[in-house]
């Protein structure tokens, strides 16, 4: 039996009453690649953050080489030998490779940074990670894959014993990903412990020694790779097939939106889809699959490099969000705090934001028209706010989201793009948001729904497109809309 590096037992973390990680056990041995898999929101990130000292667990114990540890912060964990390579790289682009590798631990001589020493430290590590490049190269001149290697080099310079890789191949090209996998194999031979977090099941089966599957914050199982196949892992990830709650007796009408071969170079390509009146079309996929980018393109935030967008059978070009709104589009963005709301503004300010022309005469806002509009939507969506003049910042997540939704309903849209419409929203508000959407769809609204929450997506959608790595991998209807099939296409598992 190999030496155990890290042992987590009964680790639990709650946020505002929601249990993100529930009594999770996990051990990582030296010379092992341990894969952690699960759907979006299963608790993987929270788990990583607890191991690496970013969060303090509410319950449970972490032991490093058999000794209990309580990290006061990420630096303490790093000093203890645990390094995390995040999805967003944490290098300083304007500095050289050598400077980045010794960052925060500068070798000194007579009080000044000893750059010669820094360069020799870096030069001794670069061959290990297979990067044949001058240590004086600035990081901003490197490709994403090379930058990631520099981060790994930094972890090695810190004498890390445990390396946590969080979706390391998400933004790499295939060649870069292959190279990274080789490096991970090499690090295993050097007896490091590696916790590998990935959605991509091919990688898990290529690299992993053991696999731990989490779902809803709980450990479903830990198995040696030999005891598993991809179908089994997917089944563990999605759990029991939940029954679809909504009887879909919708009768979609004429096509509102038809997208043909839409491409944004390097982000998504050849996207073709259709949304009809009175229909909810789901867009499924993993984080980073390009769903939000497609939505932003359709809403005129970014411009496509190729492809055709038709509205009511006529080709259109959508130059700005205003142009999209004029076509009858609405977009509920994925992050309401940075993209949806003027947080310091009032409920009224936020709700009336897109309908100023409707409530004004010659550029002057009619207080009466505005008040009536706002009061109407507060009633209709049961927005709970002390008054319409209250800052939206102080409302709960659910009520904030209802304000965003109300703003768009006020524009009288024909096509609504909902990007994670119920993320971070409590159960009651979620049900109300679903009810309102359902009602509008019955009146003829077309909806393009992006959601990482599969039960929501499955329950609401008439059709589902699954995106994977910037392309549409499948279009599903009827009984094919189930978690297993969606995940299979989204993660690219083969049967």
């Amino acid at each position, binding site marked *: 039996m190999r030496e155990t590096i890290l042992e987590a037992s009964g680790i639990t973390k709650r946020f505002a009453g929601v249990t993100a990680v529930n009594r999770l056990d996990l051990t990582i041995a030296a010379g092992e690649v341990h894969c952690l898999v699960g759907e979006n929101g299963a608790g993987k990130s929270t788990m990583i953050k607890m191991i690496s000292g970013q969060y303090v667990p509410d319950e449970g114990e972490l032991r490093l080489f058999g000794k209990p540890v309580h990290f006061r912060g990420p630096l303490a964990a790093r000093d203890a030998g645990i390094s995390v390579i995040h999805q967003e790289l944490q290098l300083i682009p304007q500095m050289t490779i050598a400077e980045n590798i010794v960052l925060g631990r500068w070798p000194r001589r007579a009080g000044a940074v000893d750059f010669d020493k820094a360069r020799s430290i870096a030069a001794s590590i670069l061959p290990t990670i297979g990067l044949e490049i001058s240590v004086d190269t600035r990081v901003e001149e490197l490709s994403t894959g090379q930058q990631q290697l520099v981060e790994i080099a930094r972890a090695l310079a810190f004498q890390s014993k445990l390396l946590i890789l969080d979706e390391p191949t998400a933004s790499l090209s295939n060649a870069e990903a292959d190279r990274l996998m080789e490096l991970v194999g090499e690090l295993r031979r050097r007896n490091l412990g590696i916790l590998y977090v990935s959605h991509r099941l091919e990688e898990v089966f290529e690299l992993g020694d053991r696999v731990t599957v989490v779902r809803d914050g709980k450990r479903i199982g830990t198995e040696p790779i030999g005891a598993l196949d991809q179908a089994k892992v997917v089944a563990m990830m999605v759990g029991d097939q939940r029954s679809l709650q909504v009887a879909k007796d919708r009768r979609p009408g004429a096509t509102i939106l038809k997208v043909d071969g839409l491409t944004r170079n390097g982000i998504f390509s050849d996207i073709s889809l259709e949304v009809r009146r009175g229909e909810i079309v789901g867009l499924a996929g993993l984080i980073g699959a390009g769903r939000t980018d497609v939505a932003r393109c359709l809403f005129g935030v970014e411009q496509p490099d190729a492809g055709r967008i038709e509205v009511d059978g006529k080709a259109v070009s959508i130059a700005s969000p205003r142009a999209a709104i004029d076509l009858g589009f609405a977009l509920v963005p994925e992050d309401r705090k940075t993209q949806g709301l003027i947080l310091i*503004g009032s409920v009224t300010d936020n709700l009336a*934001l897109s309908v100023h022309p409707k409530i004004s005469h010659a550029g002057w*806002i009619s207080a009466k028209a505005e008040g009536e509009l706002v009061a109407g939507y507060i009633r209709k969506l049961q927005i709970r706010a002390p008054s319409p003049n209250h800052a939206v910042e102080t409302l709960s997540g659910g009520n904030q989201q209802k304000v965003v939704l109300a703003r768009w309903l006020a524009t009288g849209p024909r096509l609504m793009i909902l990007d994670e419409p119920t993320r971070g929203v409590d159960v009651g508000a979620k049900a109300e948001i679903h009810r309102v959407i359902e009602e509008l769809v019955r009146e003829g609204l077309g909806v393009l729904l992006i959601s990482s929450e599969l039960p929501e997506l499955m329950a609401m959608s008439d059709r589902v497109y699954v995106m994977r790595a910037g392309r549409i991998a499948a279009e599903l209807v009827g009984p094919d809309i189930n978690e297993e099939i969606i995940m299979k296409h989204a993660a690219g598992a083969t049967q």
Partner: protein
Amino acid sequence: MTVASESALARKGSGRVKGLISRLGLLLVIVLFMIIMSFLSPVFLTVANFKNLFIQSTILAVLALGQTYVIMTRGIDLSIGGTMALSSALCIGLVTYSGVPVPLALLIAVSVGAGVGFVNGFSVTKIGITPLIVTLATLSIARGATFVYTNGANITPVPDVIAAFGRGQLFGVPYSVILLVVLAVGCHAILTRSVFGRSVYATGGNELASRLAGIPTSRIIIITYVISGLMAAIAGLILTARLESAGPRAGVGIELTVIAACVIGGTSLFGGAGSIIGTLLGVALISLVSNAINLLGVPPAWDDLVKGLVIFIAAVVDVYRRKYARS
């Protein structure tokens, strides 16, 4: 000094009461200051001194009206002093040297102000230069152009109509003060009641969200700089009318005092919060401080030092007020 502020949050948020208190707070400081001054200086509470005070602060106030719009969208306009000098010198120079009719010269002067503002706004939104750098450059360009145009000398005399405006009064109130009141009422109404005003609050509060909501944020930002440039031209003409001369040194360093007045008045440098009433109170406080230094026989050298301290305190208060509003 917790007082000296008013945020959008306070204005309409976790209550109007809080907003009222903070606005009253600044007013209270001003009243207290005046009471103390009336004991310290026999001249303070005289009609002549107040008339002087109003005249002194008119230019500052006109500039601050425009600056409020710019700061609310997270911008800053340092160019106003240069714009003031350029537009007024051009106006008087065109009449005196080139024989251009006065109305046309006035029109050219305000157009130049608006033009500088447009260049500022365009550079910020379309080219993507930070407001600080753009307006620092246009400040230098505008003042430099004025030096070139005037050869570094003041231009006199000013046309009679303009001089008459500088001296004129209506029921004892100087024309320039009446003009300020009209401009202030207009700016206040636009900011609080118009679609454009709402868009200014929204753009400053969250530019991305505003753009996604269909607000033409670039256009809104450009217009705020144009307003600021227009106000600078008007302020320059008021100054010229009063001094009965136009020169390249008009308004040197005034931009910092103007920005300070806005911040003291509760316009947040973080954008999205502010009001015309707050800005006017900020102008009042700064003008009173200068007036006091003058009346109490403190050497003028102290002027900048004291003003600087007032600004520093107001900026600290701005930070803490935001933290307080969050919690």
